[in-house]
């Protein structure tokens, strides 16, 4: 059981992922953009952050970079459905900036579960 901050601008997806994480036994704080997510992380100090990449206000890669600077041990899962470039482009960039695991949207419960188990099993988050 872990405390997760979930950042996604798509409300429907945010609600669904919150429910999914809760059913997997985790506690979830959901935010709709990077700035709000950062604030929430500073405040709640979660073990895991699940963040989308393409978002208004503050996008994911920038959020990941700031999180990594402020919270080196935080485990970050990046997710993306792609855009002008493919999801794998964004996700490989996210990995370079410190995401421990990446999920290409759309993904199912098993993939989410696997990602969470994977990052939580790691003793330490990777160095950027």
């Amino acid at each position, binding site marked *: 059981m872990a405390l997760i901050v979930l950042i996604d601008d798509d409300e429907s997806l945010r609600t669904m992922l919150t429910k999914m994480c809760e059913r997997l036994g985790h506690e979830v704080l959901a935010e709709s953009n990077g700035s709000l997510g950062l604030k929430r992380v500073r405040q709640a100090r979660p073990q895991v952050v699940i963040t989308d990449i393409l978002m208004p206000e503050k996008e994911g890669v920038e959020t990941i970079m700031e999180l990594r600077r402020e919270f080196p041990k935080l485990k970050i899962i990046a997710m993306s459905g792609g855009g002008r470039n493919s999801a794998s482009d964004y996700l490989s960039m996210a990995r370079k900036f410190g995401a421990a695991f990446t999920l290409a949207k*759309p993904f199912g419960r098993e993939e989410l579960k696997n990602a969470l188990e994977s990052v939580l099993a790691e003793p330490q988050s990777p160095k950027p």
Partner: protein
Amino acid sequence: MATERNGINADVAVQAFANMPLGMFIADFLKAGCPIICANHAFSELTGYPAPELVGRPCWFGCENASGQTGENAEALSEVRAALERRQSVAVILRTYRADGTDVVNEVTVSPILAENGDLTRFGAVFVDVRKRLEVEKELVEVRRRLARRIGAQTADLKQSREQLYNEIVERLQAESSLKATEYRYRSIFENAVEGMYQSTPDGKYLQVNPALARMYGYSSPTELTDTISDIANEVYVDPAVRSLFKKQIETDGEVRRLEYQVRRRDGQAIWISESARVVKSRRGKVLFYEGTIQDITRRKQAEAEAQRLERELRQAQKMEAIGTLAGGIAHDFNNILGAIIGYAELSSDDVPAGSEAASNLKELLKAGRRAKELVQQILAFSRRDNSERRAVCVADILGDAISLLRAGLPPAVHVEQHNRSVGGCAIADPVQIHQVVMNLCTNAGYAMREHGGQLEVTLEDEHVDQATATALGVEAGDFLKLTVRDTGSGMPQETMDRMFEPFFTTKPVGEGTGLGLSVVHGIVRSHGGAIRVESSVGAGSTFIVYLPAATGAGTIPPAASELWLGSGERVLVVDDEPHLANIIKQQLWKLGYKAHAETDPVKALQVFLDAPTAFDLIVSDQAMPRMTGVCLASAMRQARPTIPIIICTGNFADSGLEGATSRCDYPILNKPIEMRQLSLAVHHALRGNPQPET
């Protein structure tokens, strides 16, 4: 009895003298005034004096006018005198005056009468009235004069006519000569023109053609052309219907200007021509013949077609780019939406009893969601630009794999042929994607031949793309692998070709195709920096030509393959007595971007090297070989070219001769089995003069 003289009786002579109708007298020459000795009756009548009064009178008394002057007779009388003195006869014209004062014009013949001693003593004169004769003569003279005048006038006319005629002839000759010159000039133009020229009959025969037209139509001479062709519409026109159009226009308008159409040369080749012609009619308006000029515009037509093709391809490329951008743009939202659908379906599945209808419905919902997910992934493949999975791959190998997979699925009547003409056969590519490209193209080809069978031909070649072609293809100039997939199937109309790369465009029945196959091919090829060209015609089949940048330059090292050092086409001679190993190293080097040549006999390898010591940039040789060891080979080569970099491969480092060689740092050593990375590093350093790379 009268005396006879010269056989004439004197009496008869006197009588004849007296009765002669012509006036006569005999005068005494010796006396002054030459008095008349005797005169006859006619003379008496002539003068108007009785005969007795005449004797003794000066003979020329009648020649003096009223004032006693001889006047106009003076000259004639002198002439008479002179003639007599020469004892000669003379005839003169004398005007004599009668007793009544009238005058008579006589022709007077005077003859000398000589004495027996030859002296001139007398003379006779005979008078003939010649007034009438003179008048007639005068008239005759006048007539003659008039005649002469008329003749003169007519002669002048004639002369004038003759002159005119002469001038006309001269003019005509000049005109003829000028005409000849003009004709020569025009004939020269006709014979030497670059354009084809002809005269033809309306029913389709050539009357005459110039050499240019004969050449254009593939005949050795104009005569050969005119003799061979008897039906222009069917023997020259590619489409005989155009001839009817031409005839209609030329006979309605009198001319045809720059009509462009195709004709068939003697060898069967079709060429494009531009024809301008006019109709030549008789005075009564009957069409006599056509004459015109013909230009070969095949090159221009080809250039136009090429320009059109390029424009179409450019439009197509722009359209695909736009669709790609659009697809990429919506993919993000789609994935979020699908994420929610799949996620909620999964969440709900937990909440409904297993085996319930709701559970079954949710299962279907999930299935549909996953199908949608796959579709979106295919759309993304179409607009994909990532290159994270790229490395130097052997396209020929992929081709072989894909075709053996495909064979089972192709209709039995489809015959597959595969040609690998590429020397290198490597591209910097994602092997999975290239596999997909080959599969998609070949599956489509098979589909096009599903009804009647046919031939599927897959060819891989090397092609250098120059700047002009590169611009047309929308790629960077350089070395490419050209993959051609040709089928003899149903082919495509232009409308299909215009849209075939668009996502979801399909000609297959609903349920048989997604319309994404070619979109994905297009996306993959473009994202590899390549291009795709299509040629197709209905009923004749289709040809897809894919250009993929060949793996030769170090500048194209992909991120995932960054540990490999790639070459830039440097030439490497591989020597290994084991053919299989020689081939593996050769293949590896090609994949790394080198041009490798393998030899299995060291002696032959040495010969190859000595024949052209600068033909290679590097030698990679096995050490343990029969007839000659690697080190021996290396030193022999170094003698010919001391700076040639050489790498020795060995499976046993303790091999004799090698320790010495390496201690002197003569040759870098590669241990077998040779891994790609090691090889790439060793080759890279050897070529840059660093014999001992840190591996």
